[in-house]
């Protein structure tokens, strides 16, 4: 099997996505409060997944099902901010974060709408 330059690119993208997933998992376990964990969890959710999907799409080039990969990436991009907004708002309201780790609290300055 001859390995084309596109296959190498696809493998590199998938590997990058996997590394991001691992670092995010370590962050989710190691970080001290909910907001920091959300910050760490965003990496595989959007960037890592998009890297893996791009790699898979390059490797599966020509198949009709590549559209499904693009659709999955699109749905993830659309839905991730909604979930993050809800969870972040709840975490802030229930004070499940550490005050001493915040450098700026704009909700207190400008009000919680």
């Amino acid at each position: 099997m001859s390995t084309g330059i596109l296959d190498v690119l696809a493998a590199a993208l998938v590997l990058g996505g996997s590394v991001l997933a691992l670092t995010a998992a370590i962050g989710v376990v190691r970080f001290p409060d909910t907001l920091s964990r959300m910050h760490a969890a965003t990496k595989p959710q959007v960037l890592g997944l998009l890297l893996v999907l791009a790699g898979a799409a390059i490797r599966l080039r020509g198949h009709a099902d590549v559209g499904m990969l693009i659709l999955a990436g699109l749905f993830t991009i659309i839905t991730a901010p909604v979930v993050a907004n809800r969870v972040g708002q709840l975490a802030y309201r229930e004070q499940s974060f550490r005050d001493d780790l915040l450098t700026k609290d704009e909700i207190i300055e400008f009000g919680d709408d």
Partner: protein
Amino acid sequence: MNTVWTISAVLLTAAAAITMFRLLAGPGTLDRLVALDTFVAVTMCAIGTWAAFSLDTTVTYSLTALALISFVGSVSVARFRVRDKDRSDGRRP
């Protein structure tokens, strides 16, 4: 080239295992929700890696399904969950 796929699979398995620790141990509901989101993302990465490795496109439909189902699940938990009780570690509830 097989080495790269194997390394990716090992990294993703380690990520899933580590995330599962937070999912089981997380002190609050929101921590578990964040961990579950991460876990689903890792699972989607794994499915994409499998599709890229095996050139098998039948699994790509489950990627789209997972993307939508995890959104519905996370929003439902955030909407309908019960507040956590007071914790004893000094933080406010």
